[in-house]
């Protein structure tokens, strides 16, 4: 942590591509625009804990990435997909409740990730950066990953959107209508996995889920259609990134948490405005 914070005051804004703040903003907004609509479905389908589980498992993916010497983002996505498959398999047996299974997978994989990382003596991982994010240190290569992954997720979401709405409203009705429910659900889990892998670098593992949940929840009181809520949550997410970065620069606070604090503030404002509108 503490990266860039001290040097920020001395940065000269001659070449804007060198400015870490610009990179942070571009990266953060890119994430927010994708996390918003996906987060809406996460909120509607009550998958918040699932997102958290994948975020915890991301550390294990990171460890495997070091061992196998692959791009961390690929390893994280792979581990998240394995975990999604494990969840679907365990859910079918019906002997344990879903939240219990998720709890086991989340903490088991986080712990395993930490243990595996401890064995890798040649690698020194800045754990704090992965847990709480390091948005001020994103590179142009990171941004390329974010926008590539983000574009893929948005394209897939556009195709899945209608079916996901039907499944969310009533799974059996969707099945009778001929929608391949299980396949759609698994595809959607993969989308979350991609977002987790991308978001890890920016807001960190522990705050990734908040980028999915908080803007979507903040959009709910001011939305009257699913699409409106998706777009508004993307906007609220982007505003949170902007507000968080400005706040971080002004008060020298950690950037990732500042973004989440801004999003939470917007959430509270949104609910209060609705509450007052109902009273008046």
């Amino acid at each position: 942590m503490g990266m860039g914070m001290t040097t920020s005051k001395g940065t000269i804004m001659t070449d804007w591509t060198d400015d870490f703040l610009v990179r942070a903003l571009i990266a953060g907004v890119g994430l927010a625009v994708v996390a918003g609509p996906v987060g809406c479905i996460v909120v509607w389908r009550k998958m918040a804990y699932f997102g958290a589980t994948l975020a915890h498992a991301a550390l294990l993916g990171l460890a495997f990435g070091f061992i196998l010497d692959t791009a961390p983002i690929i390893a994280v996505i792979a581990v998240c997909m394995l975990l999604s498959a494990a969840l679907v398999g365990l859910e079918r047996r019906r002997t344990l409740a879903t939240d219990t299974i998720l709890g086991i997978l989340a903490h088991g994989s986080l712990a395993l990730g930490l243990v595996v990382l401890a064995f890798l003596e040649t690698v020194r991982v800045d754990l704090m950066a992965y847990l709480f994010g390091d948005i001020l240190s994103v590179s142009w290569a990171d941004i390329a990953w974010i926008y590539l992954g983000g574009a893929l997720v948005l394209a897939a979401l556009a195709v899945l959107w209608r079916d996901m709405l039907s499944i969310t409203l009533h799974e059996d009705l969707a099945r009778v209508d001929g929608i391949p429910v299980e396949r759609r659900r698994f595809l959607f889990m993969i989308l979350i996995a991609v977002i987790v892998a991308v978001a890890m670098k920016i807001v960190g593992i522990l705050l990734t889920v908040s980028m999915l949940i908080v803007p979507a929840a903040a959009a709910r009181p001011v939305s009257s259609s699913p699409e409106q809520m998706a777009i508004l949550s993307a906007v609220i997410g982007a505003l949170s990134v902007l507000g968080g970065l400005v706040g971080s620069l002004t008060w020298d606070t950690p950037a990732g948490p500042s973004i989440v604090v801004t999003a939470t503030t917007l959430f509270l404002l949104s609910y209060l405005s609705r509450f007052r509108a109902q009273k008046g």
Partner: protein
Amino acid sequence: MTGMPHKTDAPALVSLTGICKRYGDTSVLDHVDLSVHAGEIVTLVGPNGSGKTTLVRVLLGLSEPSTGAVSRARGIAIGYVPQVVAVDETLPIKVERFLALALRRGQDKSDALTRAVEEAGIGRILDRPLSSLSGGENRRVMLARALLRDPDLLVLDEPAAGVDVSGQSALYNLISDLRARRGCAVLVVSHDLHLVMAQTDRVVCLNHHVCCTGHPETVSRHPEYLALFGADVGRSHAVYTHRHDHHHDLAGEAIHDGHGHDHEQGHHHD
């Protein structure tokens, strides 16, 4: 029931034969036969936990039977109205958008939607959030949704649940109107006999196995039925029943065997 095509003459839209469904050691369905023919209203009655919903899920293809055969007519469209649909408030969606979601891709939107909305009488609530509807409104919206794909068979699971009494009779009238207008077959699942009986062509009484089946009046006098629902139900039911102009030959109509053989035989009314 004059003027209806004779049930056994019409082709079977769906037929289930020898359906068994077991969960572990528990047998929920035991050699159940059920068929629904074009244009008829069939009521599936049985106490709570008798396997009605399981049977419907098998019929719809939502659940695989342990043994037995399910056959559906080629190209059949089924409109399904599930038990009370709880709509979560976290998803903001208006009634009209909800209905439009159920249209086939590329299906002409205006025609089917307008007709279904009109038939279900929900024109006034199209702009309301789905989560704000009353029980009766919710049922009607789900019914309109089921009508969108011009179904050959409507399957309604406990349509009266969560609807007040006046709403219930309106709903049942609506269902029988729909049959008359569209000629679709209707399968109604119910644990509440009183209102259903008057409009239905055939009753199948289920308690894990088929206890008895036949015309409502016949079934209501069947010993197994009375044992299941109590003699009180039989009596109160009589109050609600229409007095038909034809009478039944009890000896000829009585079902001798309630254990899953061909119940279609022997239900000839004169």
